[in-house]
């Protein structure tokens, strides 16, 4: 039992389970999945589908945080990638031409990589603290997205582009497959190559890593580029979902949800050990929470407050020292004969 509780996925999974259980009691058909016209429908599918962009961003964020960094610009990159692809497609003759859509996707992803490279170079080359370095793009990025779209909200009529976010494959939403591929690639890249070891090493102790011969700058730049790429893919999903690009609101506050997902998943903001599977569970939990809030019917003006309280509860339950304090309280209450240890002033 103790070993199970010590596992890094124990608390994230418990929280997710508790949230799902609550839903089961509240609306027994929460878990029901229906087949309609060759597609699966249901709350669980929705959570996976709508959670896809967050999972993508959070996976990239996990690696950045593992290097003792943080990337605040992911929300802006989401907006820029969406703007870039929509702009390219809207300029085309035939919005539904496959080559045009592919080119748009390619351009958007290359741009995301470049933005990640920019972040990485600011952190390594210029030696700016990650939170400030990425703050620059977080603020400027919204402007860049608006520049690309010329301050307008671009709307498309391109079924091929819409497929990315709304299409389905083998009865499941296509976005789930994108997430699966990115997640698998990230896991393979970090666990089957030495990159994971280098990321953890650099994140734990950059100085010692350098003296052990690790090129920490390259590791860090690579990680920011990967994070940018993930955010770019998420941006494609989101803009494809609504067939439009909104430089102002696309991906707004995504960085915060992503950081939260990483932390809930057990990766420390101090860098070092990281858990991609934990991040997956964390992101799913946040999405489940959002879905729950809607399905329970909480008034829209207080949803953020409710979300904040649940997040607070989750963080407290995950905190080992908080748990210990509660247990101590509880024990001393039950055995009044045993005096609490006295401290001398």
């Amino acid at each position, binding site marked *: 039992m103790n070993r199970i509780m010590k596992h890094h996925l124990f608390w994230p999974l418990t929280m997710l389970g508790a949230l799902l259980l609550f839903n089961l009691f509240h609306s027994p058909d929460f878990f029901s999945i229906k087949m309609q016209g060759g597609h699966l429908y249901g709350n669980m599918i929705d959570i996976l589908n709508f959670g896809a962009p967050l999972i993508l961003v959070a996976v990239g964020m996990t690696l950045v945080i593992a290097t003792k960094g943080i990337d605040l610009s992911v929300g802006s990159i989401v907006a820029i990638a969406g703007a870039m692809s929509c702009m390219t497609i809207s300029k085309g003759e035939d919005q539904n031409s496959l080559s045009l859509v592919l080119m748009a996707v390619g351009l958007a992803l290359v741009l995301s990589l470049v933005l990640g490279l920019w972040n990485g170079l600011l952190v390594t080359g210029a030696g700016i603290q990650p939170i400030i370095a990425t703050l620059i793009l977080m603020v400027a990025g919204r402007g860049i997205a608006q520049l690309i779209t010329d301050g307008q909200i671009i709307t498309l009529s391109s079924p091929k582009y819409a497929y990315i976010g709304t299409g389905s494959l083998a009865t499941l939403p296509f976005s789930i497959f994108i997430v699966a591929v990115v997640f698998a690639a990230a896991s393979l890249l970090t666990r*089957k*190559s*030495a*990159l994971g*070891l*280098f990321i*953890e*090493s650099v994140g*734990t*102790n950059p*100085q*010692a*890593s*350098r*003296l*052990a*011969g*690790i*090129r920490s700058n390259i590791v860090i730049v690579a990680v920011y580029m990967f994070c940018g790429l993930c955010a770019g893919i998420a941006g494609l999903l989101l803009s494809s979902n609504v067939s439009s690009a909104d430089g102002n609101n696309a991906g707004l506050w995504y960085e915060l949800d992503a950081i939260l997902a990483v932390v809930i998943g057990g990766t420390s903001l101090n860098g*070092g*050990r990281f858990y991609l599977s934990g991040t997956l569970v964390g992101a799913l939990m946040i999405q489940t929470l959002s879905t729950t809030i809607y399905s329970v019917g909480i008034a829209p003006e207080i949803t953020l407050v409710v979300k904040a309280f649940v997040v607070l509860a989750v963080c407290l339950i995950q905190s080992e020292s908080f748990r210990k304090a509660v247990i101590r309280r509880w024990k001393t209450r039950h055995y009044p004969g045993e005096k609490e*240890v*006295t*401290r*001398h*002033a």
Partner: protein
Amino acid sequence: MINMIDRQPILQMSGIYKSFPGVRALKGVDFRLFAGEVHALMGENGAGKSTLIKTLTGVYSVDEGKVLLDGKAIRPQSPQDAQEVGISTVYQEVNLCPNLTVAENIYIGREPRRFGIIQWKEMNKNASALLSERLSLHIDVSLPLQSYSVAIQQLIAIARALSISAKVLILDEPTSSLDRNEVQQLFAIMRKLKNEGLAILFVTHFLDQVYEISDRITILRNGEFVGESLADNLPRIELVSRMIGKELNLLEEMPKSQHEEHAESDDIWVEASNLGRTGAIEPFNLVIRRGEVVGLAGLLGSGRTEIARLFFGADRADQGKLKFAKSSEAIRSPRDAISQGIGFCPENRKIEGIIDDLSVRENIILALQATRGWFRTINRKRQDEIAEQYIGTLNINPPNPEHLVKNLSGGNQQKVILARWLLMQPELLILDEPTRGIDVGAKAEIQKLVMSLSKRGTSVLFISSELEEVLRVSGRIAVLRDRRLVKEIEGQDISPHHVMQAIAGG
């Protein structure tokens, strides 16, 4: 001296037990401390010294046992708790804030305030008074802490402890980074504080210092209490034998005439010509031959570490160059040095050596994996074999490759870093203070290792604050003074007298 038998100890720890997963660190240890004495706590690595101190200062909680301070049971839950009841600790690595001023460091969290506003003048005045009255230290307290030497910083840490009205002062390896004069300065202050009635618990690995300053000695071995004795009644030889058990003669057995056994070769492996770095080390010339052990002797801050760092590319030289016999490449980074076949165990192993959240296995293979790049991975089976092999040959304890390095004792961490470089089969191994803060037994092991490396043709650049150690292992000694390489002593000329004279100069 006051008769201590009649008095109650100010601190009494009895039957202390403490276990960690897989390790029983303390098995019923007793310890007592009287007011007005300096009490040395002695033991090898893993004897339980650190654990005992950490239970006393609230870093760990005890599993079993009693701690009485002034006759009252205490159970501190945190270092703050311990400080409140009057137990303060000054660690080997000063844990103050280097960029705050001296006065701020002393009063941080307890700044004198009036109407909520910090009274800077009053704080500085109090700090000055405290330092000059109790420690006879007259310095400008409004300068940042980092503008003073480690020795002064340590005294400031002591002043901070005193200002929180300490009854018990724990000095954990305070002298390991101090030079001779600084140690004397510290001892003078310890004597003064002792006479004022403070109880001082002193941990060190230097036997000389133990006998110079301590009134009483407690010995631990493998987490057990071995004995307590007045320092005057405990001959050195007995102390050592009780600390290390039967391996008493390990050190004495080390033949003094090791230099002759060195593989004599004129085969130059690397030559530093006019190598220097402004503000760190004046330009110097130094040749290292294949299979040779070159010792660097000098006081702390004389430029020993700086030379090592230049050889390894950890710092960039701004003049002169390193010429390798086999290639003409320049060294710009540790990576370059590693590809030339150089390994480096840095002085400050916590900051520059170990990656503390990673396991022993990962720490050992790190440098090898770094040279192989991202994709040529060492498969897991091979990693396990490597880890097992070095845990065996270097006697790393606990012998578990998946143990996190941060949970190892200092000596074992040092062995892990050694393993990392031995695995690379370096042609030149730079050891900067490899035996600092580790016990007599492990020291002898490391010295032996240096010998065997040299016999196999590996050159070693050996740096140590312990002169006797440098003398024992080196075939040639480069002496440094005030950031300048002043003399090289070789072969039969190597003697303590010679080297000391060169260090002292004049």
